[in-house]
């Protein structure tokens, strides 16, 4: 036994396959339950009745509130993405490069939205949104400010983890010495090297915004989750089908991110495909946050993915040095050949 479990020894192939199978079943079971539920025909048996009904123009009125909520949520996701990319990302880089002593404080600060119960946050947000409703807009879009706070812990960690794997200080100093200003450093040097973290943060942002229910419901704003809840009261089959559909979309996005960022990069510091910021790494684990809570009241299956926390939806579980042409031994080219010939 000690030999099998010794440090540095990989599990045997059959054990790996068993673990993989168990995990797959664990994740697929609720999804299959949801699928089975949506395939139940009103008159008995199985069919695509409820799926077809979703896209039937005759049912537009029934689903209007939900689709309107979906539109609002997509707009919110876009606005929060802007916050993540334009505000949070530069702030993380700034703290990393210029104020590393603030790093610890920022780490703690960004945990607060997770640590504070959603209801408490709503109590705090309520007077702010009362004022916004009176003076700016009572529509749903101002909710992006609150959602910016909600996504902060996830976006921060996805980006910061990736940034820690890059020698950002040296890269930025090299770029600066070559004449680049800070904007160029951020856009042309740092961002491409934390692409994986930015993609993960973006995906998490979309997932969280699409899956958020508590804040929007208590602040009386129409979002996707609120629409789903309303729909669930009249058409639970349609609501679960929409939940499943949104899960599939998010899964497709996840695969897309994996494909886009999966190519191993040999960057100094040992980063690679399985790096900390990878889909399978710290950031990737958070991607499993449910975009929607598929298990609605009255629906017999649980959530397909782990609980997304207090703000989740309305469900119950919610090379060696080689010789080279004209190499070193030959010495530098004649000054007349070079660009610096005098």
């Amino acid at each position, binding site marked *: 036994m000690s030999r099998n479990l010794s440090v540095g020894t990989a599990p045997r192939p059959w054990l790996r396959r068993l673990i993989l199978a168990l995990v797959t079943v664990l994740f697929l079971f609720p999804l299959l339950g949801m699928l089975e539920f949506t395939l139940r025909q009103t008159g008995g048996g199985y069919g695509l009745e409820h799926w077809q009904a979703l896209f039937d123009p005759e049912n537009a009125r029934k689903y209007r509130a939900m689709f309107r909520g979906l539109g609002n949520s997509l707009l919110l996701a876009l606005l929060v993405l802007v916050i993540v990319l334009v505000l949070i990302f530069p702030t993380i880089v700034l703290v990393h490069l210029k104020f590393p002593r603030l790093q610890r404080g920022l780490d703690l600060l960004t945990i607060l939205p997770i640590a504070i119960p959603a209801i408490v946050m709503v109590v705090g947000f309520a007077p702010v949104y009362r004022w916004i409703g009176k003076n700016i807009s009572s529509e749903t879009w101002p909710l992006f400010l609150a959602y910016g706070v909600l996504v902060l812990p996830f976006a921060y960690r996805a980006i910061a983890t990736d940034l820690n794997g890059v020698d950002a200080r040296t890269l930025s100093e090299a770029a*600066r010495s070559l004449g680049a200003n800070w904007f160029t450093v951020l856009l042309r040097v740092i961002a491409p090297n934390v692409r994986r973290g930015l993609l993960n943060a973006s995906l998490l942002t979309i997932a969280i915004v699409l899956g958020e229910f508590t804040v929007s419901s208590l602040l009386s704003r129409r979002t996707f989750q609120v629409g789903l809840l309303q729909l669930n009261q009249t058409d639970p089959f349609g609501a679960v089908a929409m939940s499943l559909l949104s899960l599939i979309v998010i899964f497709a996005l996840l695969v897309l991110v994996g494909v886009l960022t999966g190519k191993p990069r040999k960057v100094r510091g040992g980063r690679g495909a399985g790096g900390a910021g990878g889909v399978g790494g710290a950031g990737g684990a958070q991607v499993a946050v449910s975009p929607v809570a598929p298990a609605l009241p009255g629906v017999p299956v649980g959530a397909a993915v782990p609980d997304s926390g207090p703000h989740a939806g309305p469900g119950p579980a919610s090379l060696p040095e080689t010789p080279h042409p004209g190499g070193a031994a030959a010495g530098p080219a004649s000054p007349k050949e070079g660009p610096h010939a005098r």
Partner: protein
Amino acid sequence: MPADATTTNHAAGGVKPTRGGDHASSGTEGLGAAVSLVEVVKKYGSTTVLHGVTLELQPGELVCLLGPSGCGKTTALRCLAGLEEVSGGAVLIGGEDVSAVPVNKRDIGMVFQAYSLFPHLTVAKNVAFGLERRGVPRAARDTRVEDSLRVVGLEGFEDRFPHQLSGGQQQRVALARALVTRPKALLLDEPLSALDAKVRVRLREQIRAIVTELGITTVFVTHDQEEALAISDRVAVMNGGRIEQLGTPEELYRKPATPFVANFVGLSNRLRGVVQADGVLVHGRVLPVGSLDGASVGDEVMAFVRPEHVRVERVGGAGAGSGGAGGALAGDGHGMPGTVVSSGFLGSLRRTVVKLEVDAAGGSEEIAVQHGADDDYEPGEAVILTVAPEPVALQKV
């Protein structure tokens, strides 16, 4: 301030009139301009890292900042680059005070200790980065990138990514990237320290050749004395945030201004003695010295003696040692008896450590001797040591 060079602590040695100096006299446009640190102070909170460092480089000159870890050499370079703000004093590039100018506007090229190529860009795009920032047209940019890569011997590598290059190749690309913008000064922060020994030697020779060809004013930071001595026009030895001595490599080695320099540059034996009218009395023998360096008769001093300035001789047999030592032999009454502790083969020479019998109480002192590789000594063998009249430095104790 003298035009050639000064430090706050020591008068500077002469500047080699070769290399960049030729370019300086031509007045051709784009040549590396003089670079100066004037009484530069750098503080981090209450800690002072640089204590009024003054250093002036001639156009086209290559000066090494040499010193142990924490001596302030990299900080001085970063102040020069603009990566650190100076707490006092001034930084001049091309005669212009750039102390308040941000790094991206100082027109410098820099190569870092860590591999600093942008991992997401190809070699060509890395090298072109600085040209893009300066708005150089595409066609001219491509030509200059190509030429620059040829200068560092990496033509044909344009489409490779940094991770497809060896460490030495990456640093050569970094050098090409730093040079392609034709900066006023080239700053190299221990660029070879991550490379293996053979590549280091080859690359440092290449760097020396390139900066000589281009006539660019260069500051090279290193903690490797051999590297500094091999490629520099002058070397500034730093210690505790100050320049201990600035001089040519020969001056540093032959005439170290301070015991620290004597100890840090090259190997030195430390022999305790008392200054006499005709030399230094060491272990009952008077060693003739070239200069008393301000010490007075009766002063207790520590004499720093290079291993190659000591001659070793078998008792009653043939001797070995530095051919140029010319020291008085045992028969002259200056020889010091000792016992061989060890003898190590170093390739072209051999280093033998001898324990001197210094006093009747049984005290002893070890001294290293370098001699031809053919003369082998067995541990325990009795020998006579003779020191040439060139103790490299005297330190009062």
